[in-house]
């Protein structure tokens, strides 16, 4: 949890020049290219050489049994694994053509570009408004009008505005789990990323909140590239355009979601999605 807070703080506090505060729709569409990536934690080989291209403005779901390496792989994209002791990586990950593991990379700037939503909602113990505005203020934006506009826009994007517009000063901790998670997504959007990573974002939510977050994910792909880790097969099939099945640190199959869930190429994938192993 402490690490998650650190990442969020780093994400929202990344300094950006005022002239760069632009509409996300005007930003470059973000693609991710992964070339022969291998990961070790000490001696344990968690990822065993994966190649993958993630297309802009798509939702890509990572599925696989616990311990298969899908979360490790997701966390490579905003360099969250850097904090794990004994972490070592080989290969290249490019976001819009830039290798994000090159030495000169500004990790804070990278995390502003690649937002992250975690399994459990983790709002700051501040008001609803402050949660979304926090990153902007830390970035040095003082114009109240700009901040207000951005907060309203983000709350609208996550379909939370109508529910909280009269209670913006209320503590975020008083919101329901589903509302908190959508607030966390709004906080991620406020710093205008181009990629959003989600690590089981609905596993702690009830079906109604899950449906709202899923609807939101579907809507957000118009502007953002989304990568989501999920244990829920139906969720992967409902919301994603592409699905990647991981097993024992390897990418077994990566294809259009429709193909994976109707006629997967590999027997291992079929066995997993039909519940015959895993």
């Amino acid at each position, binding site marked *: 949890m402490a690490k998650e807070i650190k990442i969020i703080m780093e994400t929202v506090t990344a300094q950006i020049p005022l002239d760069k505060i632009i509409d996300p729709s005007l930003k470059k569409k973000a693609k991710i290219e992964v070339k022969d990536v291998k990961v070790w934690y000490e001696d344990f080989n968690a990822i065993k050489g994966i190649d993958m291209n993630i297309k802009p403005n798509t939702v890509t779901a990572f599925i696989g049994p616990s311990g298969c390496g899908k979360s490790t792989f997701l966390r490579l994209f905003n360099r969250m694994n850097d904090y794990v002791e004994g972490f070592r990586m080989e290969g290249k990950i490019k976001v819009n053509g830039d290798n994000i593991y090159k030495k000169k990379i500004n990790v804070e700037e990278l995390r502003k570009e690649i937002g992250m939503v975690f399994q459990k909602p983790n709002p700051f113990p501040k008001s609803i408004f402050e949660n979304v505005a926090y990153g902007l203020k830390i970035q040095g934006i003082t114009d109240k009008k700009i901040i207000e506009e951005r907060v309203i826009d983000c709350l609208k994007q996550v379909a939370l505005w109508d529910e909280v517009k009269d209670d913006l000063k209320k503590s975020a901790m008083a919101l329901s789990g589903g509302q908190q998670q959508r607030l966390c997504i709004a906080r991620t959007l406020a710093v205008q990323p181009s990629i959003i990573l989600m690590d089981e974002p609905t596993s702690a939510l009830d079906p109604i909140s899950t449906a709202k977050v899923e609807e939101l994910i579907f809507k957000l792909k118009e502007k953002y590239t989304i990568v989501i880790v999920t244990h829920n*097969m139906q969720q992967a099939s409902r919301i994603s355009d592409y699905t990647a099945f991981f097993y024992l640190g390897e990418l077994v199959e990566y294809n259009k979601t429709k193909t994976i*869930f109707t*006629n997967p190429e590999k027997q291992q994938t*079929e066995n997993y999605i*039909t*519940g015959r192993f895993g």
Partner: protein
Amino acid sequence: MANAQYQRDLLNESGAEMLAICTSQLEKAKDAFLNHDSDLAEEVILNEVRVNALDLRIEKSCEKFLALYNPVAIDLRFIMAIRKINFDLERIADHAYSISKYVVEVDEKIPPHLFKALQFQEMYDTIVNMLEKITEAYENKDVKVARKVFKKDKILDKINADSFAVLETEIKKDNNIISEALLLFSVIKKMERVGDLIKNIAEEIIFYIDAEVVKHKKKK
């Protein structure tokens, strides 16, 4: 997921049972029609209730499986296929029922030379062979065997296409057989339709096992 597998196995068994009942219904209807055996025809008519009950049971089981187990991949194809196969089999049994009704309601024995002229026995033997093939394909999940049905269906199409001219000739020879000829013509049409339904079942078996859609495609 062990329960899902168990439910799937039960459904698979029901499908096999439906296939067996409908095959038996059609064979009995054939014998009843050929031999003008109204007792056997009555048996087919009475058995229709069993077919309908099994049809409903399979429908309900499919609905339950879809709602409770969210099937994907081969499981989803299986459910989609079994629903259509069930529908087609029920239609085949309906044809057996209609033929049996003719036997009971129409008190006219078809002259044997008409059966011969129309290759009626060959048509029925072909259908029985096709039913055996799809039963084997269904039970052994064998698409190669399922594909053999397509060629056989062409034999039925040919007999059906020729039937009009054959009967016309026979009627010209003897116009006292008009009503028998019309009755036989109607049964031939039903048999041709049964062949199409068996072909549909073969297509569904191929879709279920190989995920290949062969419907509306030229078959080799």
